[in-house]
């Protein structure tokens, strides 16, 4: 080490050699990147229990010799595909749950067809979720069902739970679920009622195009896509980095359109009037107050969530009527909370220890 400059001159040739090797690897792997497809995602063995339009209900095949009595129904966010929770073996939340002895079902979404533009919030909360819960009960032979909702899947689960207060939901787990939509500052500004004519949009396009949803999310961190592409080029010699990049990039850009009427309600009732937070939300004429939820609840939030900032999620636990309730804040962002190396170490074990003892 040179005391004056702080540079370790002895390591320079070695460093140059490494960088030259990486440059060569970048060229080779760069060609490979464009000529190959990414890893296969969502491959944990499953059966389609039911499919109706935009809705699909999967049952994952058990992976342990005995399972907990209470089955788990995962409700995915309507903006994205469920395979974020089932990336590849070893990085699959679903696989983790199966190996820990849970009986896992997932309510996943596909793009609503143009005729489904008239789907309303009622269809999601009073039809799709109850229908899936009934099918889980019939398939498992159990009356109790634990529900896990991710992001807006959490909002739908909260609405379902607050209306169906007499069951059969036994436990509720929400991941990064917003209830105070004023605190989603930028999205709130994008949909400012003075300038955003949601009626004109929905009446014009029917279903809200996925490009619009994706660009709204990307605008929250406008530099991040460019920087991530630079990082990909820097690390393209690293197979693990590339695999991870491809998994997350594919999922993030695989955004779903939203049914027009459903989007209209989200904008007016949640973004504009903040009804869930103000206890004035109703779905199909049925009051949906969070205080009606009395089942054990765990809310996992991410410290660096740029889509659902903590301020938008922090009042959930206080407003829930349950006695057995817990919020846990973990390091990570909106996606890394639930998927990837961060989640494997942090959220998944936490969830297992919380849910296991409430699943017998």
């Amino acid at each position, binding site marked *: *080490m040179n005391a004056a*400059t*702080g*540079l*370790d001159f002895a*390591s320079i040739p070695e*460093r140059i050699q490494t*960088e030259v090797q990486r440059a060569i690897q970048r060229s080779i792997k760069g060609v490979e990147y464009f000529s190959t497809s990414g890893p296969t995602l969502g491959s944990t063995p499953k*059966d*389609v*229990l*039911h*499919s*109706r*339009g935009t809705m699909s209900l999967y*049952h994952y*095949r*058990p992976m*342990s*010799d*005995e*399972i*907990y*009595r209470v089955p788990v129904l995962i409700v995915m966010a309507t903006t994205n595909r469920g395979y974020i929770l089932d990336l590849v073996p070893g990085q699959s939340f679903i696989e983790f749950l199966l190996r820990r*002895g849970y*009986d896992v079902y997932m309510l996943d979404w596909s793009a609503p*067809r*143009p*005729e489904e533009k008239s789907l309303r919030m009622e269809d999601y909360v009073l039809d799709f979720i109850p229908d899936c819960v009934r099918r889980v009960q019939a398939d*498992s032979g*159990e009356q109790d069902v634990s529900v896990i909702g991710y992001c807006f899947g959490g909002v739908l689960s909260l609405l379902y739970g607050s209306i169906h207060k007499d069951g059969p939901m036994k436990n509720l787990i929400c991941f990064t679920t917003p209830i105070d939509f004023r605190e989603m*500052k*930028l999205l709130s*500004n*994008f949909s*400012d009622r*003075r*300038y*955003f*004519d949601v009626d*004109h*949009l929905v009446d*014009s*396009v029917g279903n809200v195009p996925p490009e*619009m949803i994706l660009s709204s999310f990307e*605008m*929250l*961190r*406008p*530099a*991040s896509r460019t*920087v991530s592409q*630079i*990082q990909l080029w*820097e690390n393209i010699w690293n197979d693990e980095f590339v695999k991870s990049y491809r998994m997350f990039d594919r999922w993030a850009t695989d955004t779903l359109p939203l049914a027009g009427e459903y989007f209209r309600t989200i904008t007016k009732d949640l973004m504009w009037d903040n009804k869930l937070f103000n206890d004035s939300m109703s779905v199909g004429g049925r009051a949906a107050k969070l205080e009606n939820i009395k089942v054990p609840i765990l809310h996992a939030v991410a410290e660096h969530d740029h889509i659902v900032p903590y301020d938008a999620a922090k009042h959930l636990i206080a407003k829930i009527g349950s006695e057995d309730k817990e919020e846990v804040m973990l390091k990570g962002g909106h996606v890394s909370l639930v998927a990837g190396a961060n989640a494997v170490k942090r959220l998944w074990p936490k969830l297992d*220890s919380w849910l*296991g*003892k409430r*699943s*017998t």
Partner: protein
Amino acid sequence: MTDKLNDPVAMWQKMMGEMEKGFNSFANEAMSSPEFSQAMNRAGGVAAGAQKQLGELMEKYLVAMNLASRQQVMGLAERLQSIEAQIGEMRSMLSQMAANSGISQGGAGAPRPPRTKRPPSENGERT
């Protein structure tokens, strides 16, 4: 060992990280103004209107060319999906019947494990 402070690659990565944070923060501030919302939604409203008109024009064009209209293709897709859903339900029913009659076939009809699992004991052992 290379000192991270003097490693040009580490310095470059740090600089990129700082630039990303700085730009995101700057852009977020700019995008939080009502003026931005107004401009963005004005452009979005025009785009939505144009998309609607283009859609109507395309429908007329397809009819003139004697090609299947979008509605007809969507109708076919819907029927196909309905058939797929019915096949799925039939498969599920057959699997259930096979399971009830004790026929082992793997997959959906395979016998399910017993629902007897208990949570891990306090000393950390898994049951």
